[in-house]
Protein backbone atom coordinates (compact mmCIF):
# COMPACT_ATOMS: atom_id res chain seq x y z
CA UNK A 1 0.00 0.00 0.00
CA UNK A 2 3.02 2.26 0.29
CA UNK A 3 2.67 3.32 -3.34
CA UNK A 4 -0.84 4.59 -2.60
CA UNK A 5 0.68 7.20 -0.29
CA UNK A 6 -0.69 6.01 2.99
CA UNK A 7 -2.26 3.05 4.71
CA UNK A 8 -5.80 3.22 3.39
CA UNK A 9 -7.28 0.62 5.71
CA UNK A 10 -8.29 0.53 9.33
CA UNK A 11 -9.29 -2.44 11.47
CA UNK A 12 -12.59 -1.77 13.15
CA UNK A 13 -12.53 -5.12 14.92
CA UNK A 14 -15.34 -7.49 15.70
CA UNK A 15 -15.90 -11.21 15.59
CA UNK A 16 -18.14 -13.34 13.39
CA UNK A 17 -19.16 -16.95 13.97
CA UNK A 18 -21.37 -19.33 12.01
CA UNK A 19 -22.46 -22.88 12.82
CA UNK A 20 -24.34 -25.17 10.44
CA UNK A 21 -26.63 -27.99 11.58
CA UNK A 22 -28.67 -30.58 9.73
CA UNK A 23 -31.58 -28.20 9.06
CA UNK A 24 -30.50 -24.85 10.44
CA UNK A 25 -27.67 -22.34 10.44
CA UNK A 26 -26.63 -19.90 13.15
CA UNK A 27 -24.78 -16.74 12.12
CA UNK A 28 -23.59 -14.43 14.89
CA UNK A 29 -21.46 -11.33 15.34
CA UNK A 30 -20.91 -8.73 18.05
CA UNK A 31 -22.03 -5.14 17.44
CA UNK A 32 -18.97 -3.22 18.70
CA UNK A 33 -17.17 -0.91 16.25
CA UNK A 34 -13.79 0.33 17.43
CA UNK A 35 -10.49 1.89 16.33
CA UNK A 36 -7.49 1.25 18.54
CA UNK A 37 -8.50 1.91 22.13
CA UNK A 38 -11.61 3.87 21.12
CA UNK A 39 -15.11 2.47 20.75
CA UNK A 40 -16.93 4.36 18.00
CA UNK A 41 -20.32 2.73 18.57
CA UNK A 42 -21.70 -0.15 20.61
CA UNK A 43 -24.54 -0.85 18.20
CA UNK A 44 -23.33 -1.54 14.66
CA UNK A 45 -24.68 -4.61 12.88
CA UNK A 46 -22.11 -6.69 10.99
CA UNK A 47 -24.64 -9.15 9.60
CA UNK A 48 -26.36 -8.67 6.25
CA UNK A 49 -29.23 -10.88 5.10
CA UNK A 50 -28.41 -11.17 1.42
CA UNK A 51 -31.09 -13.67 0.38
CA UNK A 52 -33.94 -15.39 2.16
CA UNK A 53 -31.81 -18.33 3.24
CA UNK A 54 -28.43 -16.62 3.43
CA UNK A 55 -26.68 -14.26 5.86
CA UNK A 56 -23.21 -12.73 5.66
CA UNK A 57 -21.24 -11.62 8.70
CA UNK A 58 -18.08 -9.57 8.12
CA UNK A 59 -15.43 -7.95 10.26
CA UNK A 60 -12.51 -5.78 9.21
CA UNK A 61 -12.73 -2.24 7.79
CA UNK A 62 -16.27 -0.92 8.14
CA UNK A 63 -16.14 1.12 4.92
CA UNK A 64 -15.06 -1.85 2.84
CA UNK A 65 -17.60 -4.11 4.54
CA UNK A 66 -20.39 -1.69 3.78
CA UNK A 67 -19.33 -1.41 0.14
CA UNK A 68 -19.05 -5.19 -0.13
CA UNK A 69 -22.49 -5.82 1.39
CA UNK A 70 -24.07 -3.18 -0.83
CA UNK A 71 -22.40 -4.62 -3.90
CA UNK A 72 -23.59 -8.13 -3.12
CA UNK A 73 -27.13 -6.92 -2.36
CA UNK A 74 -27.27 -5.17 -5.75
CA UNK A 75 -25.95 -8.28 -7.50
CA UNK A 76 -28.55 -10.39 -5.72
CA UNK A 77 -31.32 -8.06 -6.93
CA UNK A 78 -30.01 -8.39 -10.48
CA UNK A 79 -30.06 -12.16 -10.07
CA UNK A 80 -33.67 -11.98 -8.91
CA UNK A 81 -34.64 -10.05 -12.04
CA UNK A 82 -32.84 -12.43 -14.34
CA UNK A 83 -33.77 -15.75 -12.76
CA UNK A 84 -37.11 -14.97 -11.12
CA UNK A 85 -35.95 -16.44 -7.81
CA UNK A 86 -33.72 -15.57 -4.86
CA UNK A 87 -30.08 -16.56 -4.96
CA UNK A 88 -29.13 -19.77 -3.17
CA UNK A 89 -26.52 -19.72 -0.44
CA UNK A 90 -23.87 -21.73 -2.36
CA UNK A 91 -24.36 -19.39 -5.35
CA UNK A 92 -23.87 -16.37 -3.11
CA UNK A 93 -20.75 -18.08 -1.69
CA UNK A 94 -19.24 -18.33 -5.18
CA UNK A 95 -20.26 -14.76 -6.00
CA UNK A 96 -18.60 -13.49 -2.82
CA UNK A 97 -15.42 -15.36 -3.69
CA UNK A 98 -15.37 -13.86 -7.20
CA UNK A 99 -16.14 -10.40 -5.83
CA UNK A 100 -13.23 -10.60 -3.39
CA UNK A 101 -10.80 -12.02 -5.93
CA UNK A 102 -11.77 -9.34 -8.45
CA UNK A 103 -10.06 -6.94 -6.08
CA UNK A 104 -7.09 -9.23 -5.57
CA UNK A 105 -4.55 -6.37 -5.77
CA UNK A 106 -6.49 -3.75 -3.79
CA UNK A 107 -8.62 -6.00 -1.62
CA UNK A 108 -11.71 -5.38 0.45
CA UNK A 109 -10.38 -5.44 4.01
CA UNK A 110 -13.15 -7.78 5.12
CA UNK A 111 -13.14 -11.17 6.78
CA UNK A 112 -16.31 -12.98 5.98
CA UNK A 113 -18.39 -15.87 7.16
CA UNK A 114 -21.41 -16.76 5.08
CA UNK A 115 -24.10 -18.99 6.57
CA UNK A 116 -27.40 -20.31 5.30
CA UNK A 117 -29.22 -23.31 3.92
CA UNK A 118 -28.26 -25.06 0.70
CA UNK A 119 -30.75 -26.20 -1.97
CA UNK A 120 -31.50 -29.36 0.04
CA UNK A 121 -32.28 -27.33 3.16
CA UNK A 122 -29.10 -28.42 4.92
CA UNK A 123 -27.12 -25.89 6.92
CA UNK A 124 -23.95 -24.57 5.28
CA UNK A 125 -21.12 -22.30 6.34
CA UNK A 126 -18.58 -20.74 3.97
CA UNK A 127 -15.43 -19.19 5.37
CA UNK A 128 -13.17 -16.76 3.47
CA UNK A 129 -9.87 -14.97 3.46
CA UNK A 130 -9.72 -11.36 2.27
CA UNK A 131 -8.93 -12.24 -1.36
CA UNK A 132 -11.63 -14.81 -2.01
CA UNK A 133 -10.17 -18.18 -1.11
CA UNK A 134 -13.09 -20.07 0.45
CA UNK A 135 -14.18 -23.39 1.84
CA UNK A 136 -17.46 -24.97 2.84
CA UNK A 137 -17.30 -26.07 6.47
CA UNK A 138 -19.60 -26.98 9.34
CA UNK A 139 -18.57 -24.03 11.50
CA UNK A 140 -16.22 -21.09 11.40
CA UNK A 141 -15.04 -17.95 13.19
CA UNK A 142 -13.51 -14.81 11.65
CA UNK A 143 -12.34 -11.47 12.95
CA UNK A 144 -10.39 -10.24 15.95
CA UNK A 145 -11.75 -12.88 18.34
CA UNK A 146 -11.38 -15.81 15.95
CA UNK A 147 -8.12 -17.03 17.51
CA UNK A 148 -9.92 -17.32 20.84
CA UNK A 149 -13.10 -18.90 19.49
CA UNK A 150 -11.95 -21.25 16.75
CA UNK A 151 -10.09 -23.73 19.02
CA UNK A 152 -13.12 -23.97 21.30
CA UNK A 153 -15.37 -24.75 18.33
CA UNK A 154 -12.80 -27.32 17.09
CA UNK A 155 -12.84 -28.94 20.51
CA UNK A 156 -16.65 -28.98 20.82
CA UNK A 157 -17.67 -29.72 17.24
CA UNK A 158 -14.75 -31.62 15.69
CA UNK A 159 -14.77 -31.01 11.99
CA UNK A 160 -14.03 -34.11 9.88
CA UNK A 161 -10.95 -33.75 7.70
CA UNK A 162 -11.83 -32.61 4.18
CA UNK A 163 -9.34 -35.21 2.92
CA UNK A 164 -11.33 -38.16 4.28
CA UNK A 165 -12.62 -40.68 1.74
CA UNK A 166 -15.51 -41.14 1.41
CA UNK A 167 -16.26 -37.47 2.22
CA UNK A 168 -17.91 -36.93 5.59
CA UNK A 169 -20.66 -34.43 6.23
CA UNK A 170 -19.33 -31.28 7.87
CA UNK A 171 -22.54 -30.21 9.65
CA UNK A 172 -22.49 -30.29 13.42
CA UNK A 173 -24.57 -32.83 15.38
CA UNK A 174 -25.94 -30.17 17.75
CA UNK A 175 -29.59 -29.17 17.93
CA UNK A 176 -30.51 -25.59 17.06
CA UNK A 177 -30.86 -24.45 20.69
CA UNK A 178 -27.58 -26.14 21.67
CA UNK A 179 -25.82 -24.36 18.82
CA UNK A 180 -27.25 -20.97 19.85
CA UNK A 181 -26.16 -21.61 23.46
CA UNK A 182 -22.66 -22.54 22.29
CA UNK A 183 -22.45 -19.33 20.26
CA UNK A 184 -23.48 -17.26 23.30
CA UNK A 185 -20.83 -19.00 25.41
CA UNK A 186 -17.96 -18.57 22.96
CA UNK A 187 -18.77 -14.88 22.52
CA UNK A 188 -19.00 -14.32 26.27
CA UNK A 189 -15.57 -15.94 26.58
CA UNK A 190 -13.98 -14.04 23.71
CA UNK A 191 -15.30 -10.78 25.16
CA UNK A 192 -13.29 -11.41 28.31
CA UNK A 193 -9.94 -11.23 26.48
CA UNK A 194 -10.51 -9.46 23.12
CA UNK A 195 -10.90 -5.69 23.48
CA UNK A 196 -12.50 -5.44 20.04
CA UNK A 197 -15.36 -7.81 20.89
CA UNK A 198 -18.23 -6.90 23.18
CA UNK A 199 -21.28 -4.72 23.88
CA UNK A 200 -23.95 -6.84 22.21
CA UNK A 201 -24.26 -10.13 20.34
CA UNK A 202 -26.49 -10.34 17.29
CA UNK A 203 -27.61 -13.86 16.40
CA UNK A 204 -29.36 -14.75 13.16
CA UNK A 205 -30.92 -18.21 13.05
CA UNK A 206 -31.90 -19.49 9.61
CA UNK A 207 -34.11 -22.57 9.30
CA UNK A 208 -36.96 -23.92 7.20
CA UNK A 209 -39.43 -21.55 8.85
CA UNK A 210 -37.37 -18.49 7.88
CA UNK A 211 -34.95 -16.14 9.58
CA UNK A 212 -35.05 -14.76 13.09
CA UNK A 213 -32.74 -12.30 14.81
CA UNK A 214 -32.04 -12.14 18.52
CA UNK A 215 -29.74 -10.01 20.66
CA UNK A 216 -28.05 -10.64 23.99
CA UNK A 217 -25.84 -8.28 25.94
CA UNK A 218 -22.09 -8.80 26.28
CA UNK A 219 -19.61 -7.04 28.60
CA UNK A 220 -19.26 -3.38 27.71
CA UNK A 221 -15.70 -2.87 29.05
Amino acid at each position, binding site marked *: MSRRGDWVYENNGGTCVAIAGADYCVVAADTRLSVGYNILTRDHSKICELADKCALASSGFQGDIKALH*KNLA*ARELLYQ*HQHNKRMSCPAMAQLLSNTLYYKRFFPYYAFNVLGGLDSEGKGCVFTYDAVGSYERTGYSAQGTGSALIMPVLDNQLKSPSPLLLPARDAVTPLSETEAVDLVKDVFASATERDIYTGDKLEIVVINKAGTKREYIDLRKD
Partner: protein
Amino acid sequence: MFRNQYDTDVTTWSPAGRLFQVEYAMEAVKQGSACVGLRSRTHAVLAAANKAASELSSHQRKVFRVADHAGVALAGLTADGRVLSRFLRSECINHAFVYDAPLPVSRLALRLADKAQVCTQRSWKRPYGVGLLVAGLDESGAHLYYNCPSGNYFEYQAFAIGSRSQAAKTFLERRFEGYNDYTPEQLIKDALSAIKETLQGEKLTSSNCTVAIVGRKDDGTVEPFEMIDVKRIQEIIDSMEAAEEAPAAEAESSSMQEEDKGTDAAPMDI
Protein backbone atom coordinates in the same frame (compact mmCIF):
# COMPACT_ATOMS: atom_id res chain seq x y z
CA MET B 1 -40.92 -0.76 -52.77
CA PHE B 2 -39.93 2.51 -51.20
CA ARG B 3 -42.51 5.06 -50.24
CA ASN B 4 -40.18 7.87 -51.19
CA GLN B 5 -36.52 8.84 -51.40
CA TYR B 6 -36.31 10.23 -47.87
CA ASP B 7 -36.91 7.07 -45.87
CA THR B 8 -33.73 5.07 -46.37
CA ASP B 9 -31.97 6.34 -43.27
CA VAL B 10 -33.07 7.77 -39.98
CA THR B 11 -31.17 11.02 -40.15
CA THR B 12 -32.46 12.42 -43.44
CA TRP B 13 -35.32 14.86 -43.30
CA SER B 14 -38.07 14.90 -45.85
CA PRO B 15 -38.80 18.37 -47.30
CA ALA B 16 -42.07 18.27 -45.38
CA GLY B 17 -40.07 18.11 -42.13
CA ARG B 18 -40.62 14.46 -41.30
CA LEU B 19 -38.35 11.58 -40.39
CA PHE B 20 -39.89 8.59 -42.09
CA GLN B 21 -37.78 5.88 -40.44
CA VAL B 22 -38.89 7.14 -37.06
CA GLU B 23 -42.48 7.13 -38.17
CA TYR B 24 -42.10 3.55 -39.41
CA ALA B 25 -40.81 2.57 -35.98
CA MET B 26 -43.93 4.10 -34.47
CA GLU B 27 -45.93 1.85 -36.79
CA ALA B 28 -44.20 -1.22 -35.31
CA VAL B 29 -45.77 -0.36 -31.97
CA LYS B 30 -49.21 -0.62 -33.55
CA GLN B 31 -48.46 -4.13 -34.84
CA GLY B 32 -47.87 -5.67 -31.43
CA SER B 33 -50.69 -7.00 -29.28
CA ALA B 34 -52.28 -4.42 -27.01
CA CYS B 35 -51.19 -3.12 -23.60
CA VAL B 36 -53.12 -0.84 -21.32
CA GLY B 37 -52.13 1.13 -18.25
CA LEU B 38 -54.16 3.18 -15.82
CA ARG B 39 -53.63 4.74 -12.46
CA SER B 40 -55.36 6.15 -9.41
CA ARG B 41 -53.66 8.53 -7.00
CA THR B 42 -52.05 5.61 -5.16
CA HIS B 43 -51.95 2.67 -7.55
CA ALA B 44 -50.94 1.96 -11.13
CA VAL B 45 -52.04 -1.08 -13.11
CA LEU B 46 -50.58 -2.50 -16.32
CA ALA B 47 -52.29 -5.13 -18.42
CA ALA B 48 -51.32 -6.82 -21.65
CA ALA B 49 -53.05 -9.09 -24.13
CA ASN B 50 -50.95 -12.17 -24.77
CA LYS B 51 -50.94 -13.47 -28.29
CA ALA B 52 -49.05 -16.60 -29.25
CA ALA B 53 -47.28 -16.56 -32.62
CA SER B 54 -48.76 -19.96 -33.42
CA GLU B 55 -51.00 -22.56 -31.86
CA LEU B 56 -47.91 -24.58 -30.95
CA SER B 57 -45.88 -21.80 -29.32
CA SER B 58 -46.14 -19.97 -26.08
CA HIS B 59 -46.61 -16.21 -26.04
CA GLN B 60 -43.91 -13.59 -25.39
CA ARG B 61 -43.65 -11.90 -22.02
CA LYS B 62 -44.95 -8.37 -22.27
CA VAL B 63 -44.96 -7.11 -18.69
CA PHE B 64 -41.66 -6.70 -16.86
CA ARG B 65 -40.87 -5.81 -13.29
CA VAL B 66 -38.16 -3.12 -13.31
CA ALA B 67 -37.80 -2.55 -9.58
CA ASP B 68 -39.95 -2.80 -6.46
CA HIS B 69 -41.58 0.49 -7.33
CA ALA B 70 -41.89 0.31 -11.12
CA GLY B 71 -42.61 -1.91 -14.08
CA VAL B 72 -43.24 -1.75 -17.82
CA ALA B 73 -45.62 -3.22 -20.36
CA LEU B 74 -44.62 -3.21 -24.00
CA ALA B 75 -46.07 -3.47 -27.47
CA GLY B 76 -44.08 -3.91 -30.67
CA LEU B 77 -40.76 -5.69 -31.05
CA THR B 78 -40.56 -7.58 -27.77
CA ALA B 79 -36.87 -8.25 -28.33
CA ASP B 80 -36.18 -4.50 -28.24
CA GLY B 81 -38.43 -4.25 -25.21
CA ARG B 82 -36.44 -6.86 -23.35
CA VAL B 83 -33.23 -4.93 -23.92
CA LEU B 84 -34.87 -1.70 -22.76
CA SER B 85 -36.33 -3.27 -19.65
CA ARG B 86 -32.89 -4.61 -18.78
CA PHE B 87 -31.57 -1.07 -19.21
CA LEU B 88 -34.30 0.28 -16.90
CA ARG B 89 -33.53 -2.35 -14.29
CA SER B 90 -29.88 -1.44 -14.21
CA GLU B 91 -30.74 2.28 -14.03
CA CYS B 92 -32.92 1.59 -10.99
CA ILE B 93 -30.28 -0.57 -9.32
CA ASN B 94 -27.57 2.02 -9.97
CA HIS B 95 -29.72 4.82 -8.60
CA ALA B 96 -30.55 2.81 -5.48
CA PHE B 97 -26.86 1.92 -5.10
CA VAL B 98 -25.67 5.51 -5.29
CA TYR B 99 -28.47 7.38 -3.52
CA ASP B 100 -30.07 4.64 -1.38
CA ALA B 101 -33.43 5.76 -2.77
CA PRO B 102 -35.66 4.57 -5.61
CA LEU B 103 -35.43 6.33 -8.99
CA PRO B 104 -38.47 8.61 -9.47
CA VAL B 105 -40.75 7.39 -12.25
CA SER B 106 -40.52 10.64 -14.19
CA ARG B 107 -36.74 10.29 -14.37
CA LEU B 108 -37.02 6.64 -15.33
CA ALA B 109 -39.21 7.63 -18.28
CA LEU B 110 -36.78 10.43 -19.13
CA ARG B 111 -33.76 8.08 -19.22
CA LEU B 112 -35.67 5.77 -21.50
CA ALA B 113 -36.74 8.62 -23.77
CA ASP B 114 -33.17 9.92 -24.00
CA LYS B 115 -31.99 6.46 -24.99
CA ALA B 116 -34.64 6.25 -27.69
CA GLN B 117 -33.83 9.74 -28.94
CA VAL B 118 -30.18 8.88 -29.60
CA CYS B 119 -31.33 6.26 -32.11
CA THR B 120 -33.17 8.91 -34.11
CA GLN B 121 -30.04 11.01 -34.63
CA ARG B 122 -27.34 8.48 -35.52
CA SER B 123 -26.95 7.18 -39.05
CA TRP B 124 -25.66 3.78 -37.96
CA LYS B 125 -28.52 3.08 -35.58
CA ARG B 126 -32.16 2.21 -35.90
CA PRO B 127 -34.95 3.40 -33.63
CA TYR B 128 -36.34 0.93 -31.11
CA GLY B 129 -39.48 -0.68 -32.50
CA VAL B 130 -41.28 -0.82 -29.22
CA GLY B 131 -43.66 1.35 -27.21
CA LEU B 132 -43.50 1.12 -23.44
CA LEU B 133 -46.02 1.92 -20.77
CA VAL B 134 -43.98 2.75 -17.68
CA ALA B 135 -45.95 2.51 -14.45
CA GLY B 136 -44.56 3.22 -11.03
CA LEU B 137 -44.72 4.81 -7.68
CA ASP B 138 -42.71 7.63 -6.11
CA GLU B 139 -43.03 10.37 -3.46
CA SER B 140 -45.70 12.13 -5.49
CA GLY B 141 -47.88 9.04 -5.96
CA ALA B 142 -48.53 6.67 -8.82
CA HIS B 143 -47.56 7.57 -12.39
CA LEU B 144 -48.06 6.23 -15.87
CA TYR B 145 -45.92 7.20 -18.85
CA TYR B 146 -45.97 6.22 -22.48
CA ASN B 147 -42.59 6.14 -24.21
CA CYS B 148 -42.49 5.90 -27.98
CA PRO B 149 -39.64 5.04 -30.38
CA SER B 150 -39.31 8.71 -31.42
CA GLY B 151 -38.02 9.63 -27.97
CA ASN B 152 -41.20 11.44 -27.05
CA TYR B 153 -42.84 10.56 -23.78
CA PHE B 154 -46.12 11.57 -22.20
CA GLU B 155 -47.72 11.17 -18.82
CA TYR B 156 -51.21 9.72 -18.76
CA GLN B 157 -54.02 8.89 -16.40
CA ALA B 158 -54.82 5.93 -18.60
CA PHE B 159 -53.55 4.79 -21.96
CA ALA B 160 -53.49 1.91 -24.39
CA ILE B 161 -51.00 0.95 -27.11
CA GLY B 162 -50.71 -1.83 -29.66
CA SER B 163 -53.03 -3.38 -32.18
CA ARG B 164 -56.68 -2.37 -31.88
CA SER B 165 -55.76 -0.16 -28.96
CA GLN B 166 -58.18 2.48 -30.26
CA ALA B 167 -61.06 0.43 -28.85
CA ALA B 168 -59.39 0.34 -25.44
CA LYS B 169 -58.61 4.07 -25.63
CA THR B 170 -62.25 4.83 -26.38
CA PHE B 171 -63.26 2.76 -23.37
CA LEU B 172 -60.71 4.54 -21.15
CA GLU B 173 -61.63 8.01 -22.45
CA ARG B 174 -65.19 7.36 -21.35
CA ARG B 175 -64.17 6.54 -17.80
CA PHE B 176 -60.78 8.09 -16.92
CA GLU B 177 -62.13 11.07 -14.99
CA GLY B 178 -63.04 8.87 -12.04
CA TYR B 179 -59.78 6.91 -11.95
CA ASN B 180 -58.02 9.06 -9.37
CA ASP B 181 -60.26 7.70 -6.62
CA TYR B 182 -60.47 4.11 -7.83
CA THR B 183 -59.54 1.20 -5.56
CA PRO B 184 -56.92 -1.28 -6.83
CA GLU B 185 -59.69 -3.77 -7.49
CA GLN B 186 -61.60 -1.30 -9.67
CA LEU B 187 -58.45 -0.41 -11.60
CA ILE B 188 -57.78 -4.07 -12.35
CA LYS B 189 -61.36 -4.54 -13.54
CA ASP B 190 -61.13 -1.56 -15.88
CA ALA B 191 -57.75 -2.74 -17.16
CA LEU B 192 -59.25 -6.11 -18.00
CA SER B 193 -62.29 -4.48 -19.62
CA ALA B 194 -59.99 -2.32 -21.75
CA ILE B 195 -57.94 -5.35 -22.79
CA LYS B 196 -61.18 -7.13 -23.64
CA GLU B 197 -62.06 -4.31 -26.04
CA THR B 198 -58.88 -4.98 -28.01
CA LEU B 199 -59.55 -8.70 -28.40
CA GLN B 200 -62.53 -8.06 -30.67
CA GLY B 201 -64.76 -11.01 -30.04
CA GLU B 202 -62.07 -13.35 -28.75
CA LYS B 203 -62.87 -14.46 -25.22
CA LEU B 204 -60.87 -12.89 -22.40
CA THR B 205 -59.41 -15.53 -20.10
CA SER B 206 -56.63 -15.55 -17.54
CA SER B 207 -54.39 -17.34 -20.05
CA ASN B 208 -54.46 -14.61 -22.71
CA CYS B 209 -53.73 -11.64 -20.49
CA THR B 210 -51.20 -10.49 -17.89
CA VAL B 211 -51.99 -7.94 -15.20
CA ALA B 212 -49.57 -6.27 -12.81
CA ILE B 213 -50.03 -3.71 -10.06
CA VAL B 214 -47.91 -1.39 -7.95
CA GLY B 215 -49.13 1.03 -5.30
CA ARG B 216 -49.11 2.44 -1.84
CA LYS B 217 -51.53 1.34 0.86
CA ASP B 218 -53.40 3.84 3.04
CA ASP B 219 -50.90 3.33 5.86
CA GLY B 220 -48.04 4.35 3.53
CA THR B 221 -46.50 0.91 3.00
CA VAL B 222 -45.51 0.12 -0.57
CA GLU B 223 -47.03 -2.85 -2.35
CA PRO B 224 -44.19 -3.82 -4.69
CA PHE B 225 -44.75 -4.21 -8.43
CA GLU B 226 -46.23 -7.65 -8.86
CA MET B 227 -47.90 -9.76 -11.52
CA ILE B 228 -51.35 -10.71 -10.39
CA ASP B 229 -51.89 -14.38 -9.84
CA VAL B 230 -53.55 -16.23 -12.74
CA LYS B 231 -56.19 -17.69 -10.43
CA ARG B 232 -57.18 -14.27 -9.13
CA ILE B 233 -57.41 -12.84 -12.65
CA GLN B 234 -59.77 -15.64 -13.63
CA GLU B 235 -61.91 -14.96 -10.54
CA ILE B 236 -62.13 -11.28 -11.45
CA ILE B 237 -62.99 -12.07 -15.07
CA ASP B 238 -65.69 -14.50 -13.93
CA SER B 239 -67.19 -11.95 -11.56
CA MET B 240 -67.14 -9.32 -14.32
CA GLU B 241 -68.95 -11.64 -16.70
CA ALA B 242 -71.53 -12.50 -14.05
CA ALA B 243 -72.14 -8.80 -13.38
CA GLU B 244 -72.41 -8.07 -17.09
CA GLU B 245 -75.15 -10.61 -17.65
CA ALA B 246 -77.32 -9.50 -14.72
CA PRO B 247 -77.90 -5.73 -15.05
CA ALA B 248 -77.09 -5.38 -18.74
CA ALA B 249 -79.92 -2.98 -19.47
CA GLU B 250 -79.09 -0.66 -16.58
CA ALA B 251 -75.42 -0.44 -17.47
CA GLU B 252 -76.24 0.42 -21.05
CA SER B 253 -78.34 3.46 -20.19
CA SER B 254 -75.73 4.88 -17.77
CA SER B 255 -72.87 4.44 -20.22
CA MET B 256 -74.85 6.35 -22.81
CA GLN B 257 -74.98 9.34 -20.51
CA GLU B 258 -71.27 9.17 -19.83
CA GLU B 259 -70.59 9.10 -23.52
CA ASP B 260 -72.35 12.43 -24.01
CA LYS B 261 -70.19 13.98 -21.33
CA GLY B 262 -66.99 12.58 -22.81
CA THR B 263 -67.23 14.22 -26.23
CA ASP B 264 -65.48 17.46 -25.28
CA ALA B 265 -62.72 15.75 -23.27
CA ALA B 266 -59.21 16.02 -24.67
CA PRO B 267 -58.39 13.27 -27.17
CA MET B 268 -55.90 10.75 -25.80
CA ASP B 269 -54.09 10.17 -29.06
CA ILE B 270 -50.72 11.79 -29.51
